[in-house]
């Protein structure tokens, strides 16, 4: 019997020292039936991508609350490309302004979520994105 689950890796990249968002997201995704690997904060693009590949996850969720998040997302997407792991869908959340959505989509980011985004919307989109990509 098929027993497929969505595996998602969550992380904060860079020096931003807030973890609360990751804990809330971990619980939310778990309650939606996902298997969540939470790397915590103080990660680099290298540790995120290496872990995502090692754990064979379907999606990476990055949480940012700084002005300077864009470069990190660029690095993660480039690294995924280099390691031939573009099948892993990247989602970005936090204080990411709407004006950046277009740029992020061009990079290949599959979804951007702001404060106020509903858990159930995120879950639906990620499920669709991920199970659509990997089946």
């Amino acid at each position, binding site marked *: 019997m098929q*027993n497929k689950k969505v595996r998602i890796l969550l992380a904060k990249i860079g020096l931003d020292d807030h973890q609360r968002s990751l804990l809330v997201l971990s619980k939310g995704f778990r309650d939606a039936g996902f298997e969540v690997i939470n790397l915590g904060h103080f990660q680099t693009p290298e540790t995120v991508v290496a872990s995502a590949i090692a*754990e064979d996850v379907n999606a990476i969720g990055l949480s940012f609350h700084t002005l300077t998040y864009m470069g990190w997302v660029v690095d993660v997407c480039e690294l995924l490309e280099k390691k031939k792991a573009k099948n892993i869908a990247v989602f970005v959340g936090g204080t990411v302004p709407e004006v950046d959505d277009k740029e992020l989509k061009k990079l290949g980011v599959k979804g951007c979520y702001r404060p106020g985004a509903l858990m159930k919307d995120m879950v639906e989109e990620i499920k669709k994105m991920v199970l659509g990509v990997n089946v």
Partner: protein
Amino acid sequence: MQDKGLSLLVEGLLSGDNRSLTRLISLVEDDSPLLPELFRHIYPIKGHAHTIGICGPPGTGKSSLIDGLIALLRERGLNLGVISIDPSSPYSGGAVLGDRIRMQRHFLDESVLIRSMATRGHIGGLSHATRGAVRLMDASGKDVILIETVGVGQTEVEIAEIADTTVLVLTPGLGDQIQVLKAGIMEIGDIFVVNKADQPGAGKLVAEIDIMLGLNPNHENMQAWIPSVVKTEAINQKGLEELWTAVESHLNHLKNNGILDEKRKALLVWETVELLSSRIRDRVLEKILDGGSMDDLKEKICKMNMDPYSVVSNILGSSGLKI
């Protein structure tokens, strides 16, 4: 091999590629229809991995211990696989796999594959895919496989079937652990670790374990393994060398006394019976559901309003199965 994708993955696995390994583990977790073909090819390949199970109550520092062991074994140039298991929620089916976060310093080391797995409803302390994952890791050439299990209780003893060596981790100050853990888990420990040994009560705990082991009937048997007790302070990297010496000593004991082969045979039988039971259960349930859902069946049971034995006779009778 018929499936091209699968054969590429197996090729990768046998050449030591961790990426292929982790993807094949996913296939096992997802109960892919390719599994029979996969294991027909994998089974004959005998690696040399020493599998060690690490169990114990939450809060004893299992993850820190494993993190320290990984560092130690990497210094010795060994290639490692780590399986970290966490429970799936019985309500949502999801899980937070929270062990990896404690092994940060090894994320970029390509000779260590850390693979987090959820129990996905399986009872016994492991995931149903653990055995398959261990076989795959062995086939890919890992020297050591560490398995971190879910908590501890009377029923999480499955690890002893799968691991060559089972290590039970305790810490001082967690209450009257020995009394509580009399049966089950205390019987399966090949090595006992008292972690956070700098805390008060460590000496007392070691003594309690010694006494309990002294009551072990196997003392009479010259061939039997007497479990050793090791003190560690995983966070300070203390006691890990001693632990590893005890582990290697246990493996030698298994090899020299022919126990390893016996164990592996027993494991194959156990694994096969598990698989057989599981397949039979699935097939029978499929037949009984007859295209409907579990919810339909539950509703039907409620409507019947009879005692469980009569319900079962009724259902099996009308299924057409001769049981």
